[in-house]
């Protein structure tokens, strides 16, 4: 099954990515590529709506971390919204929750 990525450019520097599907090694390159391209294009305030992510494995996690690096490298920030239970547990176990910013929903992340 593929990961569907919907991209919404909200302003000069704010963009929202809505994910739907599993995050693994198969779907990682696409996500990494999108994040890098957005950051390179000047969209530095990125929000990922993870409400539709059914499952994230170690490869999906690695993709997210290298995405974060790309965004930070361009001087931007990456916010995660509506993270599901399984993904939340993964962030907690790895203590990566200390690195990422979490928001209950995409609206809150965009306004906050």
């Amino acid at each position: 099954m593929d990961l569907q990525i919907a991209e919404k450019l909200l302003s000069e520097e704010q963009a929202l990515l809505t994910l739907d599907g599993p995050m693994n090694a198969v779907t990682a390159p696409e996500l990494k590529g999108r994040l890098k391209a957005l950051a390179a294009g000047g969209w530095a305030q990125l929000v990922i709506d993870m409400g539709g992510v059914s499952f994230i494995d170690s490869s999906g996690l690695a993709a997210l971390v290298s995405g974060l690096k790309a965004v930070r490298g361009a001087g931007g920030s990456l916010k995660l919204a509506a993270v599901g239970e399984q993904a939340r547990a993964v962030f907690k176990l790895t203590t990566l929750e200390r690195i990422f910013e979490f928001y209950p929903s995409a609206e809150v992340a965009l306004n906050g």
Partner: protein
Amino acid sequence: LKTWLRAPVDRLIAALGPEDREKRRSFRLHVFRVIALANLVLGVSYIVWRYTSTLNLDALWFAIPVLLAETYGFFDHSLFIFQMWKPARRVVPPPLEDVTLDVFITTYNEPVELVRLTAEAATRIRWPCLNVYILDDRARPAMRDAAREIGCGYITRGDEWAGMARHAKAGNVSNALLHTDGDFILTLDADQIPAPEIAERTMGYFRDPKVSFVQTPQYFYNIPPTDPFGSDAPLFYGPIQQGKDGWNAAFFCGSNALLRREALMQLGLTDYVQDMEARVRRSIGDLRRGTRSRAASPAQRAALAALRPALDEARQALRQGQPLMLVSDMVREAVAAAQRRMAEGDMAEIAEVLCELAAAGDAEAAEVSGYIDRHRSDLVAAISASPESLGLPAQAVDDLALTRSDEAIPVMALSTISITEDMATAMRLHSLGWRSVFHPEILAYGLAPEDLGSALRQRMRWAQGTLQVLVRDNPLLKRGLTFAQRLQYFTTMFSYFSGFFTLILILAPIVYLLTGISPVTVWSTEFVLRIFPYLILCRLMFLYVARGLATARGEQYSVALFPLWIRAAISVLAGAKLKFVVTPKQRQRGDLLPLVWPQALVMCLTIMAIAYGLAAYIAGRYSDLNGILINVVWGSYNIWMLWAVVRAAFYRLPADWDPKPPAFLFPETQEA
């Protein structure tokens, strides 16, 4: 003709044959074998002569199909002879004692009152330990109430069936087997009213512990005068089944049969294990293919490289017959190791990226990186890479669980590979070494379709189902069957291909009479002398086998339904998805001519061709009188065969038609 023939034959046997009944039977069998052998000799000589001397090389497009059709007929007839070669002689042993009997009455949409008749009669079956159940596939409240009134059990599908494949009657019976525990099971279709002695008369056969089922005939009490729809099957539920029984290949026909629970459960379990083994084998194959996918990272490459030899080892273990559980565990362990290996690579990558972020000034990233490095082995145990990340099919991993998560109940006692579950079930029982019995005594009374449409739909299901078994579980290749059993199943399947050849043999006289083009080189006296003795002897043999039974209508239908047989064969060979059609037990109405237009058309064509051929001969355009006469007789024979079905489309039941089951089935009503 039959009665005319039967009397002298019987008189002849009485005169020549021995007095003793048993000896007379064996004498009769020997007479049959003599006729059959003579028949085979004439048949071989005719067919060889046709191939070597009379093929019309000037019209091969016509000559070859006709010869193929004749060859098919010859093989069909030879298989019939083999089938009848040593019919079973059954003597009922005294019934088994101290065994319990469950009666399963399967219903889908039949009227409650019809099922009630059957269920009430079932409660009157004489057997010390008897339980009657109505298996209501639709869970109708009215049926539940009726079961309560009658005092019999009521079984429906449980919640586990929600959203799962239901497998029609096979699923219904398999479901009920899990809710009951009788040693033997009598299966009855909703309309098949059993006689009280059905168990006493048949239970003795189970004294042989290898006997798995006893089939009794299906008899229909509602067949209208002259049997317009060809429902009566005395030849099948008599000489044919006895013939098959002689080869230990009696057919299970779904209803009016007693089955041994142990055999059904063994069948279900064997089937389950075979299915699981196939799944594990398929899983290993799919995973092996997955390991050859292109790796996107060094971690993935290393993980897959380590997985491959482990899979080879598992495949070897499976071939050596190691327990499935063990093999499945080996594979699952190997896949889990690959997933961990891949995850280690991912964790290393995460830690590295975090180091870079730390170098850019993120103090927390440094801490997290250190934490992940220190706890890597714990982390990969909890957060591994998914099979997809490794490029492995997730379904292959799920299948290793050795469960049938896609089925409502894992053990299906009745085969579900075909829409005629009964034939496939019997074949699997035979292949496991179980024996079977055909008991040629009418012990249940049921309903035949009362309109052409329903009758044809029923035939369609039988034809499609039978051919489906051939495609999915070919008896000629099936392990565990004897040679004779293979042939018995094949004979029935082969006969369902007749449609194509019947069409050729119906068109042939039309072509000849209209065009003068002939499939044979000569219609000479030699031709007549070779074919007619063969055909007449075929006829005689058939009448001798069927002695006194009403078989003419059935014969007409087997020929006249050629469009239906053709459709059935094409649909199965093309792999169409087939549906179990429940045969209606009530009369359907509607315009029936569309059902038989091909037959009506070729009938009209034949009549026109005969008229034209005769006129052309009188006018002097045709000169071969032998050829004209043979084809006129041939065409007339075809018309007579086709007429049965065309006539049935116009058939109206008598106005006062209200058939009742035999009164002796209902003792109370008689007293009242």
